[in-house]
């Protein structure tokens, strides 16, 4: 099974063979890949080198934490590559953005108003959790469509705080 992995702009072709080998960009290595406990910690012996990685699937790809470095890896497999090359690539996410609470907490302030235009990086909401005030920023340019919380609200993790529609030029 062939996979195309993209890390920081570099592409690697990783071919996973069933007989404990991988071929990376044409180079063949003996591997031994095992979960430590119930994951997401993994031990990888590749060509004798011993690595440990903390791997998580996110909506943006695979996140690998290795020796304190965080790598975002995009993986495409043969099938999806074929679909892409056939023009079957899906549209990039263009819909409304839902700002969710990354943790439970108390809404300290909402620093924007409905209808307001905002730029990527603008502070949208200040949330207090673990005795710290955390500024939640906009991931993109756009317009505030709806605000769903008020200051002093206690909110749960993943609660939608506000909705943002993308700018027309995106």
């Amino acid at each position, binding site marked *: 099974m062939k996979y195309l992995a993209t890390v920081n702009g570099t592409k690697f072709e990783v071919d996973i063979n069933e007989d404990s080998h991988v071929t990376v960009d044409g180079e063949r290595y003996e591997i031994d890949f095992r979960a430590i406990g119930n994951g997401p910690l993994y031990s990888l012996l590749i060509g004798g080198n011993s690595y440990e990685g903390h791997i998580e699937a996110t909506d943006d790809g695979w996140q690998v934490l290795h020796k304190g*470095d965080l790598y975002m890896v995009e993986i495409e497999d043969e099938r999806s590559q074929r679909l892409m090359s056939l023009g079957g690539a899906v549209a990039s996410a263009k819909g409304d953005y839902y700002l969710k609470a990354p943790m439970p907490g108390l809404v300290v302030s909402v620093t924007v108003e409905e209808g307001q235009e905002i730029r990527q990086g603008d502070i949208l909401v200040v949330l207090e959790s673990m005795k710290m005030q955390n500024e939640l920023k906009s991931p993109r340019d756009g317009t505030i469509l709806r605000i769903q919380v008020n200051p002093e609200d206690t909110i749960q993790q993943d609660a939608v705080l506000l909705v943002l529609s993308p700018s027309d030029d995106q």
Partner: protein
Amino acid sequence: MLQKVLIANRGEIAVRVIRACHELGLRTVAIFSEADRHAMHVYYADEAYSVGQAQAKDSYLNIEKILNVAKMSEVDAVHPGYGFLAENHEFAQACIDAGLIFIGPMPHAIATMGDKVVARSTMRKAGVPVVPGTEGESNLRDDEILAIASKIGFPLLIKSAAGGGGKGMRRVNDKSMMMNALSEARRESAAAFGNDSVYLEKLIQGARHIEFQIIADNYGNVIHLGERECSIQRRHQKLLEEAPSVILSDDIGLRTKMGEIACLAARSVDYVNAGTVEFLLDEDRNYYFLEMNTRLQVEHPVTEIVTGVDIVKEQIRIARNRRLSRQQHEIELKGWAIECRINAEDSYSDFIPSIGTINTNIVPTGPGVRVDTGVYPGYTISPHYDSMISKVICSGKTRGEALLRMRRALEEYRIVGVKTTIPFHQKLLNSHRFMAGQFNTSFVDEDFSLGGRSDTDDEIAAVFAALAAHQYRQQAAYVVQRGKRDASNWKWVGRWERMHR
């Protein structure tokens, strides 16, 4: 007689104090909020009582409930730890009024040092150099502050009079920012401390944060246990501390002088028990009193290691009305110790707090490694209290050995379930300026970036991700084949499909 101690705190510091008590053969009483029934300090204490709801104001800050437990459980003394009520002079007084020994300084010393404006003027009178800024007056009006600001000059800091931990603090670069920053600082201060009084301090550029550990007994003996270097801060929150300081190790005369001034500061408020005098040290090695923390400090372990003094046991010794176990000339700083604070925060997402259950918790062990923690596998980090998971303290003969040991220890530490500040520390330990000891309090905020990767293990990351993707793909296929509806696997299928849209 001091035979039974109530620890009015939670988390790692409650565990730390319980350990000292156990080693002294003292019986311990823990208090816990409803959110903390499964906390380590509850298991480790001899007795444990609930003091109310999760919110600190209903439990760990509720003086009445805590004193009721103290009375009911017939303790002799109360140790406040740090945070919560540790620097609340009313709590100290209430303990004394209830006939209990408060393991800490007298209420008047806490009160004097607690009002930063009063503390500054007290120090100035005692002959301790303070950071230039507002003098003598408390509760200044906005217009008064604006006038003083122009005299001090910019950049400057607005600070909360009741402050601590960087709350209500604002840096102001020029006059135009002043009004806005002032109202923000007042608002934050009022919210955090119920008091919107602020004061100004000149911003000393390129300064280091150096603090001295003080211990004092009831017989007028005051000594210091050397300094700690705490300049590695992010937004005024300490992240890494070491003892001794690179600067003072090369300038013993300065250490002696600053140590004497720290003892003078303590004497000027008739200080008793353990405390810390914080200084700013500028590039020309001028030092300025910043504030005094009238309690045990988070970073006390680095001092314990280089001096061989168990500070918590010494606190209890002092509370028992004994003399200090050592004199100043018997204090020798040997070797080097470094502490990294491991917080449940995402190093890679602006240090946003991370909530969750710790599934895996393999702490580093072996030579020269100490871990102070209050968590264990299965423990859930709650949003109610601070984000500290543990403190890793590494020591060695030299700073180099301690640093390399810390690197090794952090690589061994495995925490799964929440994001932590371990990656931040790993990056920091690889930074050349940190290694060389060339940093000041603005280093992390201004000159340090997590972005730069130390290794170029892109290929390894690619293989890891491809193997994980392959594994999940096979599991997903397997589940679909068997036609079984296993929620956890379906989640993966969903993710897989979302990622491949």
